């Protein structure tokens, strides 16, 4: 079947300043062909100047992520026929949120520096490691990480650093200083490792501006990650670990704390109390002129005016039970 590919081309060597443009190639596509196969075929047979990254062609090296019909995907793991049947088009562009260097190749250095920012290697403190029994007593004993400990970081270990998540990330789209989902997934890989000795310090760092609390929960990362890493899930793990370890002195954590409190109190979100607690008194004062306008339309949240839900006692019971069971679990682990 003949399919037309529209590929975004760009070559900084072509004039100043070089403008990206679309070039169309028509290709005979057979069943089972991936987008990468198609690109290779075009480069082999029609246009040897076409540039794109590739290596393993089996979705494990992370080289070949591009934007296919508007969404970041591994070109090797996307089959042409079903994609074409669904989208009715074959538009191939470089990843979004990245600067193109040539054709489909983008500058990955910002991606790597984000990863480097989270100090992506285990830093066990020997004392803690020894107390936990992580330093093997005998050669063949292995470090003591239970299957359950492993499960906690299992997903984050699957990352192939392809950049699909960062390409789709809405927070990164607007705030280019944001640390991004890939680095945060890596951060959980370390914070969540029972052998790690600097979890708290890591969490404090991650709670700084443009850090983990800046995720807007758009779920793009989890949706488009080709390896089911679910970066958002890892971000949630980081956040709740921070809540537990008491790393609370930042708007993000305060927001969550206020919410937990509000639900416990009235069973619902109490927007006014939350604004106040998250922003602090002075900053929420700053919102007053704006608040007045909202007020005119009856949109100013009124603290405690709306009623509690029925059976609020049940909600409080649930809080207590969850806490109690967690404590039990922790103790069982220690013992």
């Amino acid at each position, binding site marked *: 079947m003949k399919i037309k590919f529209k590929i975004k081309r760009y070559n900084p060597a072509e004039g100043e300043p070089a403008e990206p443009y679309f070039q169309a190639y028509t290709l005979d596509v057979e*069943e089972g062909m991936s987008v990468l196969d198609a690109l290779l075929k075009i480069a*082999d047979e029609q246009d040897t100047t076409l540039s794109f990254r590739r290596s393993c062609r*089996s979705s494990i090296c992370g080289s070949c992520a591009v934007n296919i019909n508007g969404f970041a995907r591994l070109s090797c793991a996307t089959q042409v026929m079903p994609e074409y049947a669904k989208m009715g088009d074959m538009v191939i562009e470089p990843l979004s949120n990245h600067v193109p260097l040539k054709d489909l190749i983008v500058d990955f250095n910002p991606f*790597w520096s984000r990863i480097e920012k989270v100090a992506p290697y285990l830093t066990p403190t020997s004392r803690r490691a020894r107390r936990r029994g992580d330093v093997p007593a005998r050669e063949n004993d292995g470090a003591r990480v239970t299957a359950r400990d492993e499960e906690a970081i299992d997903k984050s270990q699957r990352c192939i650093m392809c950049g699909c998540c960062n390409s789709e990330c809405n927070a990164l789209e607007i705030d280019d200083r944001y640390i991004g989902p890939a680095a945060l997934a890596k951060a959980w890989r370390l914070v969540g490792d029972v052998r790690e000795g600097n979890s708290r310090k890591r969490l404090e760092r991650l709670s700084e501006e443009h850090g983990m609390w800046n995720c807007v929960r758009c779920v793009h990362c989890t949706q488009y990650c080709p390896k089911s890493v679910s970066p958002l899930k890892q971000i949630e793990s980081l956040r709740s670990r921070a809540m537990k370890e008491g790393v609370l002195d930042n708007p993000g954590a305060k927001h969550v704390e206020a919410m937990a409190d509000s639900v416990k109190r009235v069973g619902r979100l109490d927007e006014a109390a939350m604004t106040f607690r998250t922003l602090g008194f002075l900053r929420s004062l700053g919102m007053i002129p704006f608040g007045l306008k909202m007020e005119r339309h009856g949109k100013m949240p009124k603290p405690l005016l709306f009623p509690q839900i029925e059976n609020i006692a049940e909600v409080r019971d649930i809080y207590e039970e969850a806490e109690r069971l967690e404590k039990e679990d922790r103790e069982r682990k220690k013992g």
Partner: protein
Amino acid sequence: MRAAIEAAAEGLNVAVVSKVYPVRSHSVAAQGGINAAIKDTDSWENHMFDTVKGSDYLGDQDAIEILCKEAPRDIMELERMGAVFSRDPSGNIAQRPFGGAGYPRTCYLADRTGHGLLHLMYEQLLKHEVFIYDEWHVARLVVEDNVVRGIIAIELRGGKLHRLHSKAVIIATGGYGRVFHTTTNALSSTGDGMGLALNAGLELMDMEFVQFHPTTLKRTGILITEGARGEGGYLLNSLGERFMANYAPTVKELASRDVVSRAEKTEIDQGRGVNGCVLLDLRHLGADRINERLPQIRELAINFAGVDPLTEPIPIRPGAHYSMGGIMTDVDGATKIKGLYAAGESACVSVHGANRLGGNSLLEAVVFGRRAGAAAARRCLACAAPEFPDSALRDSAHDIADILRRDNGETASALRQEMTLVMEEHCGVFRDSEKLIAGLAKIRELKQRYGKVSLSDKGDYFNSELLAVLELGHMLDVAESIAAGAVARKESRGAHYRTDFPRRDDREWLKHTVVRKEDSELKISYKDVNISRYEPKERTY
């Protein structure tokens, strides 16, 4: 990378130069695991015996002894660095059985062992502040008076040539699977290091031994792990017969890789294939078992062959998988050029001999990578930096300008295509004198034509086409070494199977093939095998 970490730990100034970003290296694709005798009920001697036997007695036993003895310490070290090997229920490192091993001694990280370890190495590079020159393609090893001076590399991003002046260079460029048409290897596995070494005057050893994996996906050659047969998958021909019953009546599909590959090839050649493939049928295992034990295989089959193994058999065929041969080194990775080392799949120490056991090559990369790094560090601490010849950069620039200047020639991709088909046809699973000699002649003809290859991209930015030309040059050298070694070796041993000499011949051929380049001609010589503990015996399973 393991070597770099070792050297950096010694306080040296180390850089990794790689044509892909380090986590993209092909080690990332290794699924199965890494071998080590870590249980009380196992021993390094057992591991050694299995490896020697697996190598069809061509492996050097001093090297194998080191490999097996040091394996447990390296596994523990990897775990301490941060790897989490999969656990057994009691919390110890779990091990699975692998082909050719008398004990389940393969440690693994789920079905992503290579990925886990490669990313771990990358983490450690950052931790040790090793400098990374990524997407730099090494174009030349600079050697003078038998002492290495450094390298010349092209920065792909801007096309600039750089000189890296150093006291020691370690080659760890991986395998050459791409020389063959059907291969499990990455597009970047083009044997560059071997080509570079040959041109620098080094010797390559045992190049004719190429492992063919019996189950690689139709069209793409992507590996379907041995586990698929281990779980009970059937191999069927076009008549729907479980043909392995005719080749290995007792173990059937579970026979060793070379045996199964040859059986498949026979079926296909005799007209009982399905579009050049045979079928791997998992359907009788049922959805639960497939989803639980072979999820990755199902994913690969769906994504890369458009076939769901729950409802359809998977088309597979044998494909080039692993390069037993490589740059000849001693047990510290040292070559005969001072300061130049090699490790990993590009090196030949030799621990794999005529046939590699699954799970031994990651181990080789770790153990001998570490040793090469340590040896290189010792040398660096002991000597002053040798001078870097001015001419080197000029010469490289000249070579590249030459390629860029050519017009109206064939494209590299057309030539490469031809080469891979020649290799598959003439140097594949079944070899004989006639095919091999014709194949060697064709490769030499291709080398002539290579001199006139031209390109249409003359730019500096990410010139993939130029890269393809450089890689092709190395691949042709490698192909020639394979073919030349295979023509000469008149016996069948391990992965090298000659229909005209179907038996192993220890009297004549218990020796390593060594090739080197002299005035752009290949010269073959031979070297004795180190035999310390285990005398050659017939290899039966």
